[in-house]
């Protein structure tokens, strides 16, 4: 295959074209920079759709693989190895979809150092796409770590008041986990003689004796990223301080990298360990669901509330994954997309509020529905999607996850799913409280009376997300058709391991 036109290479590295173009635009020409970034990311979205068109839904395996040796170290070769299956394709699509949306949202939000912002943003897109496509452990690790850098700058330079604290915290937390993962990667490479995912899948017996430790090392990295309770404390800080676009991408895509890591590596490579750890992971997931929901309720800052809601939502994803059933995992994958859309949209909404009032304290608002009816209506839909109202996307994910977890033979008890279902109640509590405090009641603060309703650009920013929210809620079948084959394979693999364990 010709490297130059391989679709996966293109979809991964295309943003670099925009990167280079922006590099040569003078910093004062903000509009030109914005348009370049937007067009680049839109083209990349188109490329991702092209990849989708090339994808064979019936095939459960890795497709469109590209594998060339990259480095030869003594006894082992590191490959440049890209490839995708349904799960990764969906996440690549999500990335390519959210990036232009997010760039559009920065139109008026980012006025300072636009050039740098867009440069980092496009770099971030490269890193994120790479994470979902890389099938060589080392290549994966490189993309994984690389995403940290642009994110670090996005938070640290364009963030809020305590941005530096938040940026460093993000960096250190993530790095802590990934360093242990690196150790595990090295160990696997040493014992199995390869870093390529498919080789390792075939030869996982070679490191089976250590797999619980390897699972934990990988798991720590991913759990921090997800983030799972109690490793989540970086997230609220990061979200609160990050600029809107950063929060959207952070919640929308970066957190998914953790969950994706579990699916791509932890389950297939260490299946027995996964089965053994499943109850514990599920327990943490459930604690995360309930805890995140409770803590979210106590927040005064809208953004922090949404951040903690992420902890809760990602708990569902993790519960689904560690149900280790078809429904659980498929639901988990879909819920990743859902969370990306709903929470991403919520952050966009918070950003729109912040742009108007320069505060995110809920007490500064109230009665906004009266002033900004369109905004309120859109927010309501997003909020409902986030709390899992049937007919919208969130429900489909949560329901299938809970369904999968409830009858999971690995978890072997309905308690996890039962408690998690209680999280559905709590989600309604904090989200409705949020909606009430911001949008309902009388307009108490004078400054709020003059707020302008959404502009056409802002509506266009939200609209694609809303369409997907309804689409997935009402007709998720196409999405599941993408996910199911790969998940089926994965579940079969893990179930065999479970048999071996019991």
């Amino acid at each position: 295959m010709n490297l130059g036109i391989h679709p996966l290479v293109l979809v991964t590295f295309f943003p670099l074209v925009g990167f280079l173009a922006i590099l040569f635009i003078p910093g004062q020409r903000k509009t030109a920079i914005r348009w370049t970034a937007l067009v680049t990311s839109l083209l990349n979205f188109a490329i991702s759709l092209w990849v989708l068109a090339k994808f064979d839904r019936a095939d459960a395996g890795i497709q469109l693989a590209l594998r060339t040796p990259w480095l030869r170290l003594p006894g082992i070769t590191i490959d440049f190895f890209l490839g995708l299956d349904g799960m990764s394709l969906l996440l690549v699509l999500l990335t390519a979809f959210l990036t232009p949306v997010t760039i559009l949202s920065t139109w008026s939000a980012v006025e300072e150092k636009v050039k740098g912002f867009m440069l980092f943003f496009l770099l971030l897109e490269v890193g994120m796409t790479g994470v979902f496509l890389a099938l060589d452990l080392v290549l994966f690790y490189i993309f994984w770590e690389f995403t940290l850098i642009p994110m670090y700058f996005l938070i640290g330079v364009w963030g809020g008041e305590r941005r530096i604290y938040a940026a460093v915290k993000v960096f250190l937390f993530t790095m802590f986990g990934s360093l242990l993962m690196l150790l595990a990667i090295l160990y696997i490479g040493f014992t199995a003689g390869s870093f390529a995912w498919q080789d390792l899948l075939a030869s996982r017996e070679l490191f089976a004796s250590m797999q619980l430790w390897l699972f934990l090392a990988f798991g720590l990295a991913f759990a921090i990223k997800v983030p799972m309770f109690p490793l989540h404390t970086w997230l609220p800080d990061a979200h609160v301080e990050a600029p809107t676009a950063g929060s959207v991408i952070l919640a929308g895509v970066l957190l998914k990298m953790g969950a994706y890591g579990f699916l791509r590596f932890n389950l297939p490579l260490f299946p027995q360990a996964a089965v053994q750890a499943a109850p514990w992971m599920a327990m943490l997931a459930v604690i995360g669901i309930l805890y995140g929901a409770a803590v979210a309720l106590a927040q005064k800052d809208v953004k922090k509330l949404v951040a903690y809601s992420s902890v809760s939502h990602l708990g569902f994803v993790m519960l689904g994954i560690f149900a280790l059933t078809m429904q659980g995992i498929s639901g988990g994958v879909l819920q990743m997309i859902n969370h990306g859309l709903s929470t991403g949209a919520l952050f966009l909404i918070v950003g729109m509020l912040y742009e108007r009032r320069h505060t995110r304290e809920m007490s500064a608002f109230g009665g906004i529905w009266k002033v900004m009816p369109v905004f309120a209506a859109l927010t309501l839909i997003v909020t409902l999607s986030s709390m899992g109202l049937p007919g919208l996307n969130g429900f489909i994910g949560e329901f299938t996850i809970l369904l999968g977890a409830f009858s999971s033979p690995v978890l072997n008890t309905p308690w996890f799913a039962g408690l998690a279902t209680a999280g559905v109640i709590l989600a309604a509590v904090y989200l409705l409280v949020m909606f009430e405090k911001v949008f309902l009641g009388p307009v108490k603060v004078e400054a709020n009376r003059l707020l302008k309703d959404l502009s056409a650009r802002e509506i266009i920013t939200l609209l694609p997300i809303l369409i997907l929210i309804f689409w997935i809620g009402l007709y998720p079948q196409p999405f599941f058709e993408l996910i199911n084959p790969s998940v089926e394979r994965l579940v079969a693999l893990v179930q065999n391991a479970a048999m071996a364990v019991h």
Partner: protein
Amino acid sequence: MTQADFYSILPIIVLAGWALLLLAVDLWIPKERKSLTALLAAVGLAVSLGLTLAQGGTSALTFGGLIMLDGFAVYLNVIFLVSGLIAVALGYDYLKRMGMERGEYYVMMLFSISGMMLITQAYNLLVVFLALETLSIPLYVLAGFAHPKLESQEAALKYFLLGAFSSAFVLYGIALIFGATATVGLDGILAALQGGTANPVLFSAGAALMLVGFGFKVAAVPFHKWAPDVYQGSPSPVSGFMSVAVKAAGFAVLLRIFLTAFPGLAASLAPAVWVIAALTMIVGNVMAIIQSNIKRLLAYSSIAHAGYMLMAFVPYGSEQNAGQSVAAMVFYLIAYGLTTFGAWAVVVSLEQAEGKGLTLDDYAGLGPKYPWLGVAMTVFMLSLTGVPLTLGFWGKFYLFKTAVDAGYAGLALVGLITSLVSAYYYLRVVVMMFMRSGDPRVRRDGWLSLVALGAALAVVALSVVPGRLLEAAANAVLRLQ
């Protein structure tokens, strides 16, 4: 002296000879035109570099067993010579700015590099000792080059006294090894060891004392304490040179002697080196986080990096790992050297007379004002942290891989955790540059910018295609024994 003998040390002869010549020529170069001296020094280094590269692929034991020419030596000599070129580039403008434009800088530099090249090629402990002194004595002078600035003098004195102290340990160690084996040639020592005629106690004690001496040179804990003070007090280009070239020389001789002559000692020394490596990584990184002076910060960082390299040194004794140990270490030397020199170039750019411009606060606002320099420094900091898409990542990756392959996952874990600590202080520099506002003053100098940007580019570009470099490192290994 046969032709082969001559050829094997030709680059050294040329360099030392050039230094003598330069010394003489410098007398006629007026004070305003010392740039000519710099240029001449660079030419000498370049010539020597060319000759060294021409030596590539050959392997010979010459001077009746005193000198070894092999891929390892060529590889490291290239490092030394390139370091020299960079140090000249860094020093050229710096000396002028600081009002100490003296030709001796270049002469001393060339002498010191000759010593380094010699120590890498030395195959006899006597030559090792002489080369050690040859590389050290000019450095004592260079450390005090900014005299009568007190800081510089203090640095020179500390470096001198402690350097001599550590030399004494090396010497005593050599003496014990001579006592144990009745020879000072590395081949003879190996033969004595393998023949079982060596006195094991004297031998291991001697080796331990030598380890102390070289540990001092590479600034391994607990022999590291000179480094922060000396790096801070010395002129910045010299500090940069020390943190790269001297460290490289220290590791070169360590590898040369221990791998060639002492492989049997590995088992008994491994735990000690393990502890030293761990301590070095811990202390270096932990101490760095509270530094506010950039030079001191880089000094502690260089201590930490010595620890990482020692990590790969721990398993040097086993047959299957020795090659990888060396490859990993020499590869890391390149990665670390490029990165560190780049960082020092930025430091030199910002340093002003009377030691101003050296605190972290002076870096505030660098990013927005001088984006290229800021980006370059960011690249260096990330590379030192070991974040992917920098050469530093591959370097660390290789080191950790070596440690893990040899069964030292615990040590690798220490390394990883301390890397995390290091991220904190490296990021502080980035934070300062990009996330705090300020108005830094930067010296615009072509050579400095070339070094900084060139190094940054190399660090990133080579990380994308590190294949050739890894190959070179792997080749540097095979001919060691």
